[in-house]
């Protein structure tokens, strides 16, 4: 169970939060001008990377505030938490975090227990 540091309330158990999927997906300004395909993309398609993921959380059983996080989805480690107004951190900031001690490769689900 992840521990998440709400920027407003501090560290809390993950069970107090809800995940809001990919961050930085902006609602189109003028939906009517979009093609069916593009609109479908906005409504249904979200990135789903294995590794660095920019995502949204809301402290739903606490202060009810939304914020962004950068998490390594192959280890669940939260690498950074930032408020909505803050700038999206560069991916290069997290270059070194991609491998877990379990040797989790970028693609692959390996549950390794033994050091290679």
């Amino acid at each position, binding site marked *: *169970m992840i521990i998440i540091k709400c920027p407003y309330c501090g560290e809390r158990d993950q069970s107090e939060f809800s995940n809001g999927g990919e961050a930085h997906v902006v609602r189109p300004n003028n939906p009517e001008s979009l093609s069916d395909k593009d609109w479908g993309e906005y409504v249904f398609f979200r990135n789903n990377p294995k590794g660095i993921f920019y995502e949204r959380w809301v402290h739903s059983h606490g202060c009810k505030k939304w914020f962004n996080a950068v998490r390594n989805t192959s280890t669940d480690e939260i690498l950074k938490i930032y408020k909505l107004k803050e700038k999206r951190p560069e991916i290069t900031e997290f270059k070194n975090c991609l491998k877990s001690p379990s040797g989790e490769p970028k693609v692959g689900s390996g549950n390794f227990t033994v050091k290679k």
Partner: protein
Amino acid sequence: MKKKYSIASIVKNSFSNNERWEKMWRNPNPKKHYDVIIVGGGGHGLGTAYYLAKEHGVKNIAVIEKGWLGSGNTGRNTTIIRSNYLWDESAYLYDHAVKLWENLSEDLNYNMMFSQRGVLNLAHNEHDIKEIKRRVSANRLNGLDTMWLDKNEVKDLVPIMNTDNLRYPVLGAAYQPRGGVARHDAVAWGYAMRADELGVDIIQNCEVKGIKTDNYKVEGVETTKGFIKSKKIGVVASGHTSVLAATAGIRLPLQSRPLQALVSEPIKPVINTVVMSNAVHAYVSQSDKGELVIGAGTDGYNSFTQRGGYDVIEETVRAIVELYPIFGKMKMLRQWGGIVDICPDASPIISKCDVEGLYFNCGWGTGGFKATPGSANVFAHTIAKDEPHKINAPFALSRFSDGRLIDEHGAAAVAH
């Protein structure tokens, strides 16, 4: 069939100390080129290769698996099989599978232990009742064997169930007698063995790193064992499908989430039917070995770690203990997780895409084990003919642009 299994073969081998069994499958090195490459050695992938070889006469096929056969969700699911889905499209697809399940052990001469012990979907409130009655009626018109049972009939089937004295009483259930469970690993092994016999190269411990395309055509796959050429590639990698698709520049509407399950210690038979409850999140059946196999809910965030949060386990066990108080005296033996690929409308994608020769079979989320033979069968058709089988035509990727979704959320919160 070269390897023929029967009681006679077992007795014969027992005399030679069980030292003379044949290998189930070869361990070939990948060739430079295949006619079709299937990425993912789960049930769906292996089944697809089997049907491609058997029904469509494709000769030169490889299944590429990054771990060991069945190491994905095929090897870690709660094995519930049923076809009582609400929408026609789903009912046709899943029942196609159930019909294949019914002969699969004979077909492959490998016992999948498909056990049609019936599946109950419990109703705990008025809304559940309405939803279930509608589903029962739709299923009936689609030729399925779903029926409505009242509380007493449920109690007769599962006497240890606490129906009244609980926060959300059991008010009735949908019951599908043809539903049940099967031995998950055997599905992968059985398909693998027979596919291998038909000449399919099953390549384990080989990870596909990327799909190479040129001008909207596939060329082959980059793997940890080198580049392998092919004009047709079927991706059946469940949780990892969108990661692979991305290497070919394709976006899929999938989110990969942990889904957990657990087993208890084995006990003598105590529950003879598969029982599912969406409202209180409890899915339970008892395996042939005697352990209770219990499915939990999905975790609420994307992850590729094959494990989820403890709170989800707690949620499930609360519901189990509530429905079956005596299980409070039993113990959890092991818990684990898989990575499921969830689609916005809780229905799969079995489809071609913008890249020629690239096919996807994914989005099965929490409930694709039951579909294994059916999905493999129609996917093989789609790849061989380069056009969907009529059963999987509605499950095209294009439905997310035109809006023709097959929304099965109502029918199943977690569709085990």
